[in-house]
């Protein structure tokens, strides 16, 4: 049997300690409990931080388990499951807003469309379930990205594809925009993927308050916006349906 890799054993020990009662531990506490020099523990923590398994709380400077861990293991929500739970709410959003409705999940650095309700005007439309959209240029993607700092950190240093003159291609600028998304609880894309087209999205969360998907309406900017901003009635419809789906998934009602 090959020898176990010591650094992985130590990393696992750090994660075990952080999942213990204390939840948050400082570098000093961790190195004391592990009986290792601070420098060694710091190296482990920095690597775990980079892959998203550990986060540093900016206020206390203590370490805690990272959001990326939640994406592993049994909490994974099947996209087909999400569609079946969201079906009635997505229909009702399309009927109220008179616009196309889509539900997306994170998939390999892009948005995977798992559900699509046609705009209720009986025009010719093609089902887009299964298609992939860019994270940074869609409301669906931004709503997901705002809840996934690890995925965002992976974009760092990368060239974000430009689709229109309005596409945000600078990661710093995107980070600022996402802070605003997180603060107000919804995201918008106004002509950032396709000229003249826009969308408004809100995150769908599960019982552990983890964002498992996002729901959006999309359509021409003239219908969606008033003086360059998404119409507040449409934003309210989108947020209400996201809340209703989240409630059905067992999220704490708010």
């Amino acid at each position, binding site marked *: 049997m090959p020898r176990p890799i010591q650094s992985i054993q130590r990393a696992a020990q750090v994660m075990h300690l952080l999942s213990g009662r204390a939840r948050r531990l400082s570098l000093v506490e961790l190195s004391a409990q592990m009986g290792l020099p601070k420098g060694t523990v710091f190296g482990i923590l920095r690597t775990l931080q980079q892959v998203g398994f550990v986060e540093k709380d900016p206020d206390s400077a203590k370490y805690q388990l990272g959001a990326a861990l939640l994406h592993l293991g049994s909490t994974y929500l099947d996209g*087909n499951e999400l569609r079946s739970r969201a079906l009635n709410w997505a229909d009702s959003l399309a009927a109220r807003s008179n616009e196309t409705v889509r539900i997306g999940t994170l998939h390999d650095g892009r948005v995977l469309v798992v559900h699509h309700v046609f705009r209720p005007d009986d025009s010719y439309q093609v089902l887009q379930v299964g298609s992939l959209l860019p994270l940074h240029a869609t409301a669906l993607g931004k709503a997901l990205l705002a809840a996934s700092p690890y995925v965002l950190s992976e974009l760092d240093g990368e060239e974000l594809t430009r689709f229109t003159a309005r596409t945000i291609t600078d990661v710093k600028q995107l980070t600022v925009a996402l802070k605003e998304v997180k603060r107000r609880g919804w995201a918008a894309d106004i002509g950032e993927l396709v000229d003249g087209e826009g969308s408004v999205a809100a995150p769908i969360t599960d019982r552990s308050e983890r964002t498992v998907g996002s729901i959006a309406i999309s359509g021409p900017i003239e219908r969606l916006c008033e003086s360059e901003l998404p119409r507040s009635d449409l934003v309210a419809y989108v947020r209400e349906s996201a809340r209703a789906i989240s409630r059905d998934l067992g999220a704490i009602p708010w």
Partner: protein
Amino acid sequence: MTGAYVASIDQGSASSRCMLFDRRGRLVSVAQKEHRQLFPRPGWVEQDAEEILGNVLQVVPDALEKAELKLADLVALGIANQRETTVVWDRDSGRPIYNAISWQDTRTDKIVNRLAAEGGKDRFRAKTGLPLTTYFSGPKIQWILDHVEGARDGAERGTVLFGTMDTWLIWKLTGRHVTDVTNASRTMLMDLRSLDWDDELLEAMKVPRAMLPEIHASSEPYGEAGAPLRGLPVAAALGDQQAALFGQTCFAAGEAKCTYGTGSFLLLNTGDRLVESTHGLLTTVGCRIAGEPPTYALEGSIAVTGALVQWLRDKLGLISSAAEIETLARTVEDSGGVYVVPAFSGLFAPHWRSDARGVIAGLTGYTTKGHLARAVLEATAWQTREVIDAMNSDAGTVLRVLKADGGMTADNLMMQLLADNLGVPVVRPIVAETVSLGAAYAAGLAVGFWPNVESLRANWHKAAEWLPRLDPETRERRFRKWKKAVARTLEWVDDDDE
């Protein structure tokens, strides 16, 4: 008229729901309450009609409250109900003399077999459109009258009354003893042509005419409700599947819908033509709007569709939720030559073979659980295909598009397989709650909230559409294999089976 909403009651086998719809047919509010199902003996299924009435009287105000509406905001109430379930009550006390006997209850098998022995299972088919089975109300009434003391005397004097759930609710709400043509068509007591109770049938089932409700149109103001829904016009009643046909706006001959749930119900509007099936389908009334002639329908039900997915989940444990079957089935390109025929308790329409049992055919060492999952979804598509072929052949029509609704339509792969295996587009409407919507439409029409059925068509919108992608040669080759798999289910049950 000041109100802007129509209420509908979907009085189902397990629960009663109230839904409110606006003028554009959009769902505004839902409230639901489940009732107990009673199983006093194997094969017996009963419900408490008074409990159901109490639930109905509660879900209407609940739905109003959720949408912050008042009773005065409603223009009418429509009822869609579980079909065939039989209530018999005392006119003076207003109380049932026996629990409601559910459509699923099989206690009438002896009565039915006796009737069949005197002229075959299809002896009433020409008149009623139905074969002799335990589902229908007539024999259930006979059973109650034979088993409750004094019931038959009361029934003959007209102090003991019969009704399906629509009738029971309307009687309690408005005081009128009426039913609609669609519900009456499931009693096995009504002549489909005259739309009246038929003496020969009444005599055969030993049901006194005096206990029966008046048969009315499905969309017609029956009367105003008393407290606690005081003043609300009760203006529609339809059996649930007929309500779904109406809610899908299948108003013209040749239009069909299929509701996919645990089992599935396919109804084809045949217009003013009463089509007698030679393939074991049921002939039934689709709807009658007051002042207009009735529209007829052919009905084919598939016993095991969603139930097969549940079997994969609960009995085989291959998936942990019904929706996961799509994920599993998408791990493969096709079913790998595997066919699952879920003849769990025999084959129903169009085969009608009680000696059949389920098979999984075409297994090889190459088969994975993905293939099995895909074959399970395809089984629903192939069974639909068989019923549609039977309908096309009986009615002499060709179905051009299938309108699908029900919970299983969330499964996009199944919808695609349906389009592929039928060779016609499959569309899902934006309001999946077609049963409730149909009852609301019929009630709204009756009080002039909507001017005509054409205005309802304008409310129907496609939420999704799946186009056939399979080339016809492959489709027919696979269908041939499906038929071979079906042939392998036959003659499985032996007389001396343990």
